[in-house]
C-alpha cells in the first residue's frame, strides 16, 4: 500500500514540477502580459495542485492532509481571482493584447479560424 502511495506521490510531484517549471519558463518567454498570465495560471493551479496532491499521498489520512486540502482549496480560489483582477486592470489600463498579426507571418502561415485583430467600431459585439 505504501509503495503504491509512494509511486503515486512521485508521479504527482514530478508532473507538478514539470508544470511549475514550464509555467516559469513561459512567464519569461511569452511576448505579452496576457500570455504570461496564462503561464502563471498554469503554475498556480495546475502545478501547485499536483504538487500538493503529491504531498497529500505522503501525509496519509491525517490533519496534515486536511491542511493541504485547505491550502489547495484556497489557492484554487484566490489565485484565479487575482489573475482575473490583474487581467481586468491591465485591460482597463490600456494594455494591448498581442495579436497574430504582430508576428508578421505570411498569410499562408496564418492559423485558420484565428480571429484577426478587431477594427475599432466595426464588427464588435
Amino acid at each position, binding site marked *: 500500500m505504501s509503495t503504491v502511495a509512494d509511486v503515486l506521490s512521485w508521479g504527482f510531484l514530478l508532473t507538478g514540477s514539470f508544470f511549475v517549471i514550464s509555467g516559469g519558463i513561459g512567464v519569461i518567454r511569452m511576448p505579452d502580459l496576457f500570455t504570461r498570465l496564462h503561464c502563471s495560471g498554469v503554475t498556480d493551479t495546475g502545478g501547485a495542485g499536483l504538487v500538493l496532491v503529491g504531498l497529500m499521498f505522503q501525509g496519509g489520512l491525517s490533519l496534515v492532509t486536511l491542511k493541504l486540502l485547505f491550502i489547495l482549496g*484556497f489557492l484554487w*480560489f*484566490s489565485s484565479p*481571482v487575482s489573475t*482575473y*483582477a490583474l487581467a*481586468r486592470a491591465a485591460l482597463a489600463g490600456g494594455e494591448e493584447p498581442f495579436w497574430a498579426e504582430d508576428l508578421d507571418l505570411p498569410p499562408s502561415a496564418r492559423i485558420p479560424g484565428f480571429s484577426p485583430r478587431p477594427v475599432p467600431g466595426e464588427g464588435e459585439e
Partner: protein
Amino acid sequence: MSDQIILRVATKIIVPTILLYALYVQFHGDYGPGGGFQAGVIFSAAFILYALVFGLRRTHRVLPTWVVRGCASAGVLLYGGVGLASMVMGGAFLDYGVLAHDPKHGQHYGILLVELGVMITVFGVMVTIFYFFAARGREDL
C-alpha cells in the same frame, strides 16, 4: 457597473475565512505556531481586504473608528489588568500562578488573557493606521 462582482463575491467568501483563521491562530498558539500578535495582524488584514474592495465608507459602517480606537487601548488595559489582578490576588505583577487554585491553570488563564490583549491591541492599531493612511490619499497622483 457590476463587473467587479467576482471580486466582491470572492471577498465575501474569503473575509470570514480569514477571520476564522485568525481566531485559530490565536487560540491554537499554545500548541502550534502563532499567538496574539500574528492573530491581530491577520484579523486586521481581513478588514483591510474588505475596505479595499468595498470602500472605506462601508468599512466605517461595519467597524467605526471609535470601536477601533477602543480596541487599541482596551488590549493594553486588559494586559495591565491581568497584571494588576495577579497583584491583587497576592502574587507579583504578571505572575499568573495565583489566578487559579492550581498554578498551572493560573498560567493557562493568564497566557490566554494576555494573548487576547495583545491581539486586540494589534488589531486596533493596524486598522487605525490603515484608516488614517487610506483616508488621506491625494487625488492628483
